[in-house]
């Protein structure tokens, strides 16, 4: 890890770094299982309501994956937009923020259908 950068990263973007470290653990276990050497590309599903700041993830990625199987992996992020169903009138609508009201009836009571995803979808290993 680049030492000079670490304090800045950890104070600003720590939970994204923690998420990256979990991704690294998943990738390392898969690489070992497959008897491969490294990851060539990784596909992530990340919902826009999952609590991840995409710019922070970008910022922390390089340091987070340094000296791991993901070091030179190409990263593909599928951003999944938020979608909710209104609990009052059942309208399904796009949700940008957790406090968005239903566009039809104005209610704040809704159930999230999409946007909370946080998973490693696929890895290409060599």
């Amino acid at each position: 890890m680049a030492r000079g950068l670490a304090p800045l990263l950890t104070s600003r973007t720590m939970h994204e770094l923690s998420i990256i470290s979990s991704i690294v653990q998943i990738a390392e276990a898969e690489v070992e299982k497959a008897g491969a050497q490294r990851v060539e590309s990784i596909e992530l599903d990340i919902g826009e309501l999952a609590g991840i700041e995409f710019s922070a993830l970008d910022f922390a990625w390089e340091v987070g994956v340094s000296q791991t199987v993901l070091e030179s992996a190409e990263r593909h992020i599928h951003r999944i937009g938020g979608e909710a169903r209104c609990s009052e009138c059942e309208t399904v609508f796009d949700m940008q923020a957790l406090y968005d009201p239903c566009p039809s009836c104005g209610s704040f009571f809704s159930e999230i259908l999409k946007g909370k995803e946080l998973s490693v979808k696929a890895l290409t290993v060599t």
Partner: protein
Amino acid sequence: MCGICGCGQPNGAVTISKIDLKRVNFGKVTPLQEVSPLGHHDHDHHHVHAPAAKQAPGKTVLQIEQDILGKNNLLAERNRGYFEAKNILALNLVSSPGSGKTALLERTLADLKGEIPCYVIEGDQQTSNDADRIAATGAEVVQINTGKGCHLEADMVNEALRQLKPTDGSLLFIENVGNLVCPAMFDLGEGARVVIISVTEGDDKPLKYPDMFHSSQLCIINKIDLLPYVNFSVEKAKEYAQRVSHITEFIEVSATTGQGMERWYEWLRKRRGA
């Protein structure tokens, strides 16, 4: 799960220590005793380092669909099972720094003493100052210092529980690191999440940090004795929080004067019985 999986981090970035009241030295930052390092490389796997000389022939695409928080969630469920089996009500207390979490706990522990056995896990980046304050009330407490980490994770709580050994039927308060962002994502296995805001903060906190309010079942509004002096609308704060989560309940208190505390204790008694 470690906070930073970079290889430049020394072992033992996270420390977990039982607080012994006899050793507490008020006013000073005491070095932690009986430190059990949650080893940075204490994983059940080896780090496979960047490509060695040999290159495997061909490429393999692995469709794994693995939840990134899966390991933490699994450990959280183990903690939850432990709490259920021992009939322990565990609460994850989250807030910004300075909302009065520790003061609220101090008063709660003093008032419930003799009625309900209480245990505390304190999470902070550094120092055992808060745990020392809790230990002074006579409650059993374990301090987790997360080092650079900005939130508690389920494995840290699991390790802390081994030291704390809470009794059956007790109440466990887990005071998370003061931070309204990061702790929202990490389930610790708690029975309920309690978010605390104080009237010296903005009443729009629920809209600024919606994730935390979305995942909390109770919102405590603290420092209400200061309402005459600050520009904070309790009604607005509640309305904003309800936009984010319609299941959140509210209790207004002053941990300093004791106002409203009885409602909080009623909530605790009800939850314990549930």
